[in-house]
Structures are given as structure tokens and as C-alpha cells.
């Protein structure tokens, strides 16, 4: 059942583990941890998507009526904003790898800017709806059909939660920028930047789904 030692195998694994133990740094492990964390985020939203699926299946018409209220243009702009910010994060890693610290930092500033613009857009979208009385318990929503109420309930929860993730991602990137500025993150030690990037991309990926599901139901 258990093969007894092949000395060769030993050397290989021994070498590896010791390297890891001595450097006190395990980038691969850190990345693995980050991915596992992303899975939990994915399933957190996954639960919401499942709910969305269930209700859209039951109230297809109500959802369509409700979605007519959404401004596809703003949604599309927001999509582009997040895609672009994802690009700039990816580029920033490449820049750091090539020791272009300045470029890296400016790309990250640009990312933050995109994130901020996204949030500003969301703010206007939300206040527009709220102004029209469409919010939980609001006068306009009260008179709508069940499908519409559910649509807006999900809309607020899901985009709200997503917005929260944008904020967290921005804070994460902010910290990483400080580290880069202080040379704690460098071209040979950039796993933290990579992890912040992974998180940011996840936020992007979730929006990639939110956009068609809430804006594009014709």
C-alpha cells in the first residue's frame, strides 16, 4: 500500500520544503490562500445568483418590466470602467516585474480612479431610483408587482454588496501601493500585489455577470 522510500524522492521534496521553510515566504501558498478566499466570495455571490435565477424563473415578466427602468448606458459605462481598471491592475504587475515602479504606481492610481468613477456612477443610479420612490418599502415599489419588488430587492442587495467589494478592493490596492512605495513589494516579491489584483479581477468578474442580468433583459 505504501511504497517505501525512494531516496530520490526525498531529496526532491526535502529541497523544496526547506527552501520554503527558510525563506519564510511561500508565494505559491499565499496565492493558493487567495484563490480559496476568492472561492468563498464567488459562492457568496453564487448564493445571490441562485436566488436571482429562481426568482427570474418564476417572475420572468415582472423582471422585464422592472429592468426597463435601468439605464443600459450607465451600466455599459460602468462595465467598461471596471474592465479598464482590471487592465491597469494587470499592467501594473507587469510594470513592477520590469522594475518600473513609477509606472506601476501610476497604473494603480488609475485603477483607483476607475473604481471611484464606478462608485460615483452607482451613487447617481441609486439616488435616481430612490428619488423615484423605488426602494424597499418605498411608495413606488409598494404598488409594483411581486416580480418587480423582488427584482429591486435583489438589485439593491447585489449591486450594494458588489459596491462594498469595490470599496474593499480599493482599500486593498491602497495598502499595496503604500507597500510598493516603501519597497516592501518589489519586482522579486510581488505576491501581495498579485493577490490584490486577483481580488480586483474577481470584483470585475462579478460585475460582468451583474451587468447583463440586471440591465439587459429585453
Amino acid at each position, binding site marked *: 500500500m505504501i511504497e517505501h522510500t525512494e531516496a530520490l524522492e526525498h531529496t*526532491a*521534496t526535502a529541497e*523544496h520544503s526547506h*527552501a*520554503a521553510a527558510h*525563506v519564510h*515566504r511561500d*508565494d*505559491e501558498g499565499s*496565492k*493558493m490562500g487567495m*484563490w*480559496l478566499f476568492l*472561492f468563498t466570495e*464567488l*459562492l457568496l455571490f*453564487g448564493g445571490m445568483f*441562485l436566488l436571482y*435565477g*429562481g426568482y427570474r*424563473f*418564476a417572475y420572468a415578466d415582472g423582471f422585464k418590466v422592472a429592468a426597463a427602468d435601468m439605464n*443600459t448606458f450607465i451600466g*455599459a459605462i460602468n*462595465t*467598461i470602467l471596471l*474592465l*479598464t481598471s*482590471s*487592465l491597469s*491592475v*494587470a*499592467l501594473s504587475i*507587469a510594470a513592477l*516585474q*520590469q522594475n518600473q515602479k513609477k509606472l506601476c504606481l501610476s497604473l494603480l492610481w488609475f485603477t483607483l480612479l476607475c473604481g471611484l468613477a464606478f462608485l460615483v456612477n452607482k451613487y447617481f443610479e441609486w439616488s435616481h431610483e430612490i428619488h423615484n420612490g423605488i426602494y424597499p418599502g418605498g411608495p413606488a415599489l409598494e404598488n409594483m408587482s411581486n416580480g418587480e419588488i423582488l427584482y429591486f430587492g435583489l438589485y439593491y442587495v447585489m449591486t450594494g454588496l458588489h459596491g462594498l467589494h469595490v470599496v474593499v478592493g480599493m482599500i486593498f490596492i491602497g495598502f499595496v501601493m503604500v507597500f510598493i512605495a516603501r519597497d516592501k513589494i518589489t519586482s*522579486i*516579491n510581488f*505576491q501581495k500585489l*498579485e493577490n490584490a*489584483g*486577483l481580488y480586483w*479581477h474577481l470584483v*470585475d*468578474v462579478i460585475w*460582468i*455577470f451583474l*451587468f*447583463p*442580468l440586471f440591465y*439587459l*433583459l*429585453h
Partner: protein
Amino acid sequence: MEQTHESRAFGTENHSHTVGYGTYIMVWLGLVALTAITVTVAGMHLGSLTLLAALTIACIKTSLVAYYFMHVKFDNMVIKVFIAVCLLIFLTFWILTFSDLSFR
């Protein structure tokens, strides 16, 4: 310890691959184009196909982001398997929940 061997096969432990700026920009262009397509398709009143098209395009976009921006392309087998497991489990949640919703 298979991951050891794998990470070896993919190069050194603590350094991932460097990707040129060009690749990233191409991917971004693709993503923007797909966004344009999905908006257009949604406006075409294809009935039930609208949802299918929108989801397919979203999936393609996600794969692009994951594969290039998130460097899954260069990740070792372990992480790829992790992702597959996660998606598989997520899919079973859907299938089994809809074994209820779509039959009642």
C-alpha cells in the same frame, strides 16, 4: 507531493511569468468588444435567446479575465483543479435547485 513537481515544471517557485503589455491590451480590447456585442444583442429582441447570449458572452469574458488577467494560464495544475472543483460544486447547486423549481 505532486504540486512540487508541477511548480517545477512551470518554472521557478516564487516568480510567475512576465506577460507583455501588448497581450493585456489585446485582451482588454476583446473585452470591450464583447461588451459592445452583448449590449447590441440584447437590443435585438431575440426572446429567450437573449438570456442565453448574454450568459455565454459573460462566460467568455470571465474566462478571458481569469485566464490572462488572473494568470490562470500560468498557474500550476493544483489551482486549476481547485477552480474546476469550485465551479463544479456551484453548478450542482444550480442543477439540484432547479430539479425542484422547474418541476413544481
